């Protein structure tokens, strides 16, 4: 039976994290963590909260992706300078492969390695170990592996290029390929959740500014030319949140639609975050272009996460495959179109 309500556990998690981030991930802290984008004190507090271990299974039951998505969305909404999504994905993957997770920082490369190097991996610049897929093998590099740290990046995220030479093989063959596919879908769902959080918070900044900024004798939010752009963005934000919830549910229930929905959610949430932060910034006028206002932090983060996920073009094949599979399973019922 369809149900769009958050569970009481999810509401509790949200309340706990909202309070935590309000104390430890303020805009001032986000700015202080730049340009690397990593806030060790915040990461320590999140560790005390149970991250990333709460992504592991308890009594044989895996943690629910839907719950982790709530956490990722909250982290996205306050631009948390901490490797929440990638460490949750790494924890789940190690759990699935029966490997023990330690207390060190393990990040996950959403894209396969090329020529033995996992490029542009979020948090690789600060991680103890990096998990990456290379051909039909899942490798884990570190500690002490070579990491190249780019001189400058768009929005922190402690990006690094990890050399996988000498890395340990965690799994290989078809089992590794399918385990990586599951982990990548997890990453897409949680990144989509983070993007939905960035989108909602970026839109909120634009809306609040439009309520208080006066021009021509009235708040600029009373001008339809502006208000309607924000309303369009609101529909995208709403859609992204719904799609993230469905994709997480599909992951938790093992639905055959889960990979298609994960790709779809990442692409759509990226579209929503771009649009919401772009229009939110535009509502600020010239001030939105200055570094003093927080909206630019959201604008940059939205684009950075979208670029990591590959955007809409990266989702095309998975979404088309989903469309064809859905159509075939519907016509199994021998309806057809009349």
């Amino acid at each position, binding site marked *: 039976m369809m149900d769009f309500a958050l569970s009481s556990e999810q509401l509790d998690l949200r309340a706990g994290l909202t309070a935590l981030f309000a104390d430890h991930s303020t805009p001032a802290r986000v700015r202080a963590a730049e340009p690397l984008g990593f806030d060790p004190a915040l990461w320590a507090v999140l560790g005390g909260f149970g991250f990333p271990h709460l992504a592991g299974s308890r009594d044989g039951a895996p943690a629910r992706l839907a719950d982790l998505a709530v956490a990722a969305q909250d982290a996205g909404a306050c631009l948390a300078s901490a490797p929440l999504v990638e460490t949750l994905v790494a924890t789940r993957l190690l759990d699935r492969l029966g490997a023990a997770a330690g207390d060190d920082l393990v990040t996950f490369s959403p894209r396969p390695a090329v020529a033995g190097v996992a490029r542009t991996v979020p948090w690789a610049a600060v991680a103890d170990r990096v998990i990456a897929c290379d051909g039909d093998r899942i490798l884990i590099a570190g500690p002490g592996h070579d990491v190249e740290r780019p001189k400058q990046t768009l929005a922190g995220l402690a990006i690094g290029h990890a050399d996988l030479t000498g890395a340990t093989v965690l799994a290989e063959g078809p089992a590794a390929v399918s385990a990586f596919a599951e982990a990548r879908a997890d990453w897409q769902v949680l990144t989509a959740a983070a993007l939905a959080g960035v989108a909602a918070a970026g839109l909120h900044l634009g809306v609040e500014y439009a309520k208080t900024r006066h021009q021509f004798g009235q708040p600029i939010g009373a001008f339809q030319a502006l208000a309607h752009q924000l309303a369009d963005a609101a529909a*995208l934000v709403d859609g992204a949140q719904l799609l993230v919830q469905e994709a997480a*549910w599909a992951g938790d229930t093992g639905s055959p639609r889960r990979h298609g929905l994960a790709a779809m959610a990442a692409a759509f949430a990226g579209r929503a975050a771009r649009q919401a932060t772009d229009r939110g910034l535009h509502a600020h006028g010239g001030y939105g272009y200055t570094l003093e206002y927080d909206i630019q932090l959201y604008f940059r983060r939205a684009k950075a996460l979208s670029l990591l996920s590959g955007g809409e073009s990266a989702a095309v094949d998975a979404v088309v495959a989903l469309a064809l599979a859905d159509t075939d399973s519907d016509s199994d019922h021998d309806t057809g179109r009349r």
Partner: protein
Amino acid sequence: MDFELSAAQLRFRDEVRQFLAGLPPQTSAAVHDTGTLHSWDVHRAMAERGWLKAAWPVEQGGQGRDPFEMATLNEEFARAGIPIEGWLIAELVAKTLQIVGTQQQRHEVIPAILGGEILLCLGYSEPDSGSDVAAARTRATRDGDGWVIDGQKMFTTMAHEASYVFLLARTNPDVPKHRGLTMFLVPLDADGVQVRPVHTLGGERTNATFYDRVRVPDSARVGEVDGGWDVMMVALAFERQPAAAGHLLHLLGRALDWARTAGPDGPAPIERPEVRACLARAYTDLEVSRLMGYRMTWLTSRDVLPHTEGSLAKLFSSEALMRASASLVDVVGADALLTGHGTGAPADGWIEHEFRHSVVTTIYAGTSEIQRGIIAERHLGLPRATARRAGS
């Protein structure tokens, strides 16, 4: 959180699918080609199965179907491309009468609607009032025990098949516009009523209706005198489920069939990257549209009236439908100039048809601008838009 229909809901869906599979081939094209998005054959077959009153409580002779079953029924008809606009309009009036109608209306009109005997049409819009519907100028004047109605209505779709028009009329010109309106159920065969066809870009026939000294008894009134706006609010709440998601579902089905079939001069269109990109985007928008629709259904199932959720769904899904059909026409290319069903046009003409039809979904039942205004004010809390006057 759960995104699956229950076993009972799925059983009903299969029942609906079986019914649709049993319809004669080309039913969809044949109904669309008449320009009237209603088939009495389909309507009577639905009545036989009790589906016209499926949502009604069992005690009242209905089937007591839950909101998800009803949403499923709508979705399956949409997927199959079988238009049921005649029923949807009649049903929303029946639901409104159930709440605000007189005992006589509930006992005479509702059973005729639910039995599949009659249709109704909506008489809200006028030549000079569309989005500003409360500015209606069609007058109803007291005349002894009854009323005399004079004026004109636009977009009275189904009027040429309907028995009654659910008509918004001005009964008091001396009060603020919302407070001087009254609703009536006017028989379309009354003296002084004229129905003239209006043909549309999407091939659909709608109507202009004219009312020249039309006399109706006071028993034709629905709700209080000057209380028409409150009645409208009830009726509009039943109209909120947006149709665009269903049209998008149908369009994508047809487009995927087209894309998978090799053409006379080359491989299947789905091999082309621009076709795949277009399908992926449209299919993503369809998923979001359906989720927004199902969330409204879920709210309804919990006796919560969707408000801004309805506007978000209506805005997103209708704009998505326009975007999808416009970009699909583009990837079909010059062959999309070939139109019609059963004429050899690509996708049997459905992509080109939706390109023309989709336009109206961003206009009727509250334009995109009306929805954006509602979202801006009630969802985002932005200040109410004010008209700037010269010199201010």
